[in-house]
């Protein structure tokens, strides 16, 4: 276990350096820097731009800047957003809160609906419900989430202001509300985005659940259990379900990485103040340290998520152990 962990953690280091360097390179391929935004202002002279470039360290060669940034990161200094003039950490933390709420809510939404429906559908294979719900699952998986977001915005606008807000993370007077009302306000603003982001996940999970159960239901050990004379209910809950849930545990780990920026387009369409939109704008305005900070955190989440998923898999699935994992 310990050897496996150390190996994996050591493996991560070159990976993170590689990813951040490539991202840094890609950002530097774009001509200009953040300060180019100021150059069209007739009141800002080229000397001021040069002074600011020097102040932000943008006038150094690529490698020097990258090493400097990396050095800062090692000392937990993620740098300074050029656009917002505050530290990248505080910016990401503020947005990450919104994103995590949204991501967790959509995940919960998807899971608590998908798993029971998947079970019911599988147990009644080829019934009319199975067909209808499987078809709907395909619809849900196929509808592009930005298109669904457009539809929801349209729907909300059409319903008028007494219904759900068509966009935003909270109301403008959020800060003047009481705590309970704040929570209610947030939930109101979450319903449509959660639906938009949850639908695809829910459809996919439902299909996975269904096929898992179908596979296990017909496997040897379930037949054995039945042959032993166990009641059907016990067979289903104790043997089928427990084994069918295995892949879901690993999936939870993998979706950690998708927390960051998995939904930039939806955030843009529905104006959600999340990490995706932050990163999108940062990429477009060449706010390089903000981009790098987000990329780094996204990568770490992904890698840690994968690691946790693998550990969880070993924990629940007796067929897998660390030595087989390490050889992959």
């Amino acid at each position: 276990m310990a050897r496996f962990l150390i190996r994996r953690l050591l493996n991560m280091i070159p990976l993170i350096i590689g990813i951040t360097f490539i991202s840094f390179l890609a950002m530097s391929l774009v001509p200009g820097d953040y300060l180019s935004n100021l150059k069209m202002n007739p009141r800002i002279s080229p000397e001021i731009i040069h002074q600011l470039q020097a102040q932000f360290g943008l006038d150094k060669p690529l490698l020097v800047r990258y090493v400097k940034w990396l050095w800062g990161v090692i000392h937990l200094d993620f740098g300074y957003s050029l656009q917002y003039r505050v530290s990248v950490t505080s910016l990401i933390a503020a947005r990450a809160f919104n994103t995590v709420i949204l991501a967790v809510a959509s995940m919960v939404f998807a899971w608590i609906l998908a798993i029971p429906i998947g079970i019911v559908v599988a147990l009644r294979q080829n019934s009319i419900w199975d067909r209808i719900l499987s078809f709907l699952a395909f619809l849900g998986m196929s509808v592009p989430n930005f298109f669904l977001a457009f539809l929801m915005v349209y729907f909300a606008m059409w319903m008028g202001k007494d219904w759900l807000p068509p966009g935003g993370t909270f109301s403008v007077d959020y800060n003047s509300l009481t705590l309970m009302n704040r929570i209610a306000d947030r939930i109101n603003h979450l319903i449509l985005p959660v639906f938009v982001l949850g639908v695809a996940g829910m459809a996919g999970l439902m299909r996975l659940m269904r096929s898992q159960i179908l596979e296990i239901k017909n496997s040897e050990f379930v037949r054995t259990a039945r042959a032993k004379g166990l009641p059907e209910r016990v067979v289903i809950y104790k043997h089928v379900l427990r084994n069918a849930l295995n892949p879901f545990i690993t999936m939870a780990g993998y979706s950690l990485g998708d927390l960051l920026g998995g939904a930039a387009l939806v955030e843009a369409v529905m104006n959600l103040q999340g990490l995706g939109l932050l990163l999108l704008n940062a990429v477009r305005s060449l706010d390089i340290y903000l981009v790098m900070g987000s990329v780094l955190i996204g990568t770490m989440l992904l890698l840690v998520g994968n690691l946790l998923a693998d550990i969880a898999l070993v924990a629940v699935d007796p067929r897998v152990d660390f030595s087989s994992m390490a050889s992959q």
Partner: protein
Amino acid sequence: MARRLKDTCAHPAGRGAVGLLCLIAALAAGCEVRRPTNNHADQQILYTAVGADPQTFNPILVTDAVSGELLGDVFESLIRVNPVTTLPEPGLAQSWDISPDQKTITFHLRHDVRWFDGHPLTARDVLFTLKVIYDPKVPNSIRPGLLVDGKPLAAEAPDDYTVVVHLPKPFAPLLYSIGIPVIPAHILEPVWKAGNFNRVWGINTPPQKIIGDGPYKLTRYVQNQFIRMDRNDDYWMTDEHGARLPRLHGRVVQVIPDANATYLRYQYGQLDVYAPRAEEVLDIRQKIGTGRLHARLRQIGIDTGELFFCFNRNPRHYVKNGVTDPKLTWFTDRNFLRAIAHLVDKQAIINLVYHGLAVPAVSDISPENKLFYNPNLRDFDYNPGLASEIFETAGYHMVNGRRTDPQGHPIEFNLTAPTGRPEADQICAILKQDLENQGIKVDYQPLEFTTLVEKIDSSFDWDCVLLGLTGTIDPNDGSNFYRSSGNLHLWNPNQPRPATPWEAEIDRLMDAGASEMDPQKRAPYYWQIQQILHDQLAIIETVRRKDYVSWTDSLENYQPTVWGLYKPEWIQFKL
């Protein structure tokens, strides 16, 4: 079917799913937000929105519009500009005298101005402010406007309430550019001396620590959410009855990056003021008409900025190893440019892009700039027939469906604009269609703003661009654009000496206009500049939007103009 549904519900897992669904529905339905009813009027607090966070609270270091707008309410300036007359009017200086030779200006400061901490504001603060602005280690956007012939002004203070400024030659724009925010010397001078001026009063500073002298104090700032300002009870201005101004008790400025969200919030009554875009004007009009919105909508004038096409005339890009790209020949050929100008279908742009809420732009200066706008220019009207006639007489003939120049090169060029602006895409698509009907091939490719700027500023690798620059009252603020040496002289920036006689003439007129103190006598110089730009087609104008502002019914004395609010201190909610 019903039986099966019952079956599903009977199954434990099915029951679970149905139960959860009900739970979610109940949860969602139960989330009615009980918000305090719109109390902006009772509290006399004005709610507005800005599109981005401020980048600094240091008024000298401001480079972004949002910080400038916010700090304008916190720091008073020496002289203000009246947005209705567009003339300078008293601010911290209650009056000023200009010496007969027009080289010395004496400002008489008010005696009753105090900083938020109670210190009186004196000439020492003004001198300190100038010193900081001229400090080469302080990057600021104020300095260029206060340089006459590249040299700083000499300023002195004979007493605590008099500031005398000496100019090397008469310099009219000074009265506009001296409208600088004055900063407190007693707080910032030690910081500046310690070399920390560039780091002081960043946006992480607690707002109460920002010591200004304006009508409002900053009291709270939550990043990405709002800026709260409260009334400065000791503000010097009084109304006609002697009551202290401002009348509002405070302002809340919401940070809402998305224009659509801002509009939505205005409709919900969460904001009191909104400047709608063309489609929203129609929507507001409709909602006011049907009583769904209790607000007013007013057209406040013609926008001060506009979008224009500009062709690259930079030999540094087109002449390589002694070979001149034919493009340079076309783009400096007045006949070619005239034909293009006649192909800009301004009426279609107005109708299709701005829903009819725009007017053709003729000059680079807005008609709202009553002092300097030249009303005598004749617009190039949309006339494809005339355009092809001009092409033909100038030797640009159609060959196999392609327009070719006299040397036989088929005409084609790249057109670009900043991304993320749907109106720019549409205007370019309209021009492209008309040019292609004339056999001219156009490759349209919008670019990220930063990329575009790099091309215009450094690599010069572009052919034609659709751009907009915001207008200012004093045309001298546009020096960088008009002068051949300017870095915003888009078509050929940073020229060591003027490349053409007409550019030299513009340089001369800019100098002459700047040294004439009487606004009425200044205007003709800038009229002439507009005429030259128009005749030479250095930029080809499109249209100007009509500006609208809508505000809630209960707001009184709200008088917006295209140059800003008129008498903002008098704004109040109906009691």
